[in-house]
C-alpha cells in the first residue's frame, strides 16, 4: 500500500493489512501506537524502563490478536489503552507490600516534591503524586487529563460506567490537589 494511504488509513484497516502480511502496515502501526502505549505506561508506572517493557508487551499482544481481530467491535486504540493499563496495573500490584503512605514518600536519594517544585519540574512532581494514588484513580486521571480521553471512552477502556469514571477522576484530583497544593507556600506554588 502507498505510504500516503497508510498515513490516512484507520488503525483497524492497518491491523487487517498487517494480519494479511503487510510489513508496511506493521511499521505504520508501530509508529502510531507505540508512543501512546509508552506514554500511558510511563504515567502509570513512573519508571521508563518498566514502561518500555509494558509498551512492547502490549504491542506484541496486538500483533498476536491481529488475525482474529473482529472488525467494528472495538477501536484499536481503546483496546490498546486497556491492555497497557492492565499490564501496568499488574506491575503495580507486584510492587505492593509497600503501604500507600510509604509509596507517597519519595525514595531515598530521589528529590522530594518540594525540590522538584523549586526546580519548576511540575511534570515530575505530578508523577510523584500520581504514584501515590490508588491504581484505578491513577488510571482514570491519566486517561482523562493527560491522554485527553472523554469519560465515555475511559468507561470503555476501564470497562466500568461513566459515573464510576467521574467518581474516580474526581477523587483522584482531590487527592492530587491536596498533595500538590497542601504545602503551596513551601512549594512556591503561587509563584508560577
Amino acid at each position, binding site marked *: 500500500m502507498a505510504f500516503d494511504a497508510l498515513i490516512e488509513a484507520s488503525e483497524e484497516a492497518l491491523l487487517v493489512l498487517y*494480519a494479511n502480511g503487510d510489513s508496511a502496515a506493521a511499521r505504520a502501526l508501530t509508529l502510531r501506537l507505540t*508512543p501512546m502505549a509508552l506514554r500511558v505506561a510511563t504515567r502509570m508506572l513512573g519508571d521508563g524502563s518498566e514502561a518500555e517493557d509494558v509498551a512492547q508487551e502490549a*504491542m506484541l499482544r496486538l500483533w498476536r490478536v491481529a488475525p482474529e481481530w473482529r472488525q467494528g467491535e472495538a477501536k484499536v486504540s481503546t483496546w490498546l489503552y486497556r491492555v497497557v493499563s492492565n499490564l501496568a496495573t499488574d506491575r503495580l500490584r507486584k510492587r505492593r507490600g509497600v503501604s500507600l503512605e510509604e509509596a507517597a514518600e519519595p525514595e531515598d536519594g530521589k528529590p522530594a516534591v518540594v525540590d522538584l517544585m523549586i526546580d519548576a519540574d511540575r511534570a515530575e512532581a505530578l508523577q510523584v503524586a500520581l504514584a501515590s494514588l490508588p491504581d484505578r484513580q491513577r488510571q482514570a486521571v491519566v486517561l482523562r487529563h493527560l491522554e485527553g480521553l472523554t469519560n465515555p471512552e475511559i468507561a470503555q477502556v476501564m470497562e466500568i460506567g461513566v459515573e464510576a469514571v467521574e467518581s474516580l477522576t474526581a477523587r483522584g484530583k482531590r487527592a492530587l490537589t491536596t498533595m*500538590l497544593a497542601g504545602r503551596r507556600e513551601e512549594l512556591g506554588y503561587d509563584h508560577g
Partner: protein
Amino acid sequence: MTMGDKDKTHDPLEVFFGAARAATPEPSPALLARVLADADAAMQRHRQTGPHAAVARVPRRGGLAALLAVLGGWRTVGGLVTATLAGLWIGFAGSDRLSDVAAGYLGGGAVEVLGTVDLLPGDDVFALAMGTEG
C-alpha cells in the same frame, strides 16, 4: 474562550497536567526496533501456524445451513432424501409391486430364484458347521 478552557484556568492542577503533557516521553529507536521485530516474528508465526488472513466478523449461519452442517452436507442429505422417497413409494404402492420392480431390474428368472432361496439353513448345513456329522 470556551467553558472548558475557563474550567482549565481555574483548575489548580492544570499547570501540572499541562507540564506533564508537554514532557511526553518518546519511544527510543531501540524500543521501536524491538516492537517491529516482534511484529515480524508474529507475522511469521501466523503464516506457519494457521490462516493468517485477518478474520472479518463471521456471519451468522442460517437455519438451512445449520441443518446441512449437522447432517453432514449435501451428499448425505441427498441419500436421505432418496431413501425417504423410496419408503414413501413402497408404503403407497404395497409390497406386491416390489416383485414387478425387481423383475424390471433383474429379469423374471431372478425373481423366481429369489422367491425360492432358503434363507434358513437346513439341518445338514447346521450339523456341518458344528462338526457333528460323520
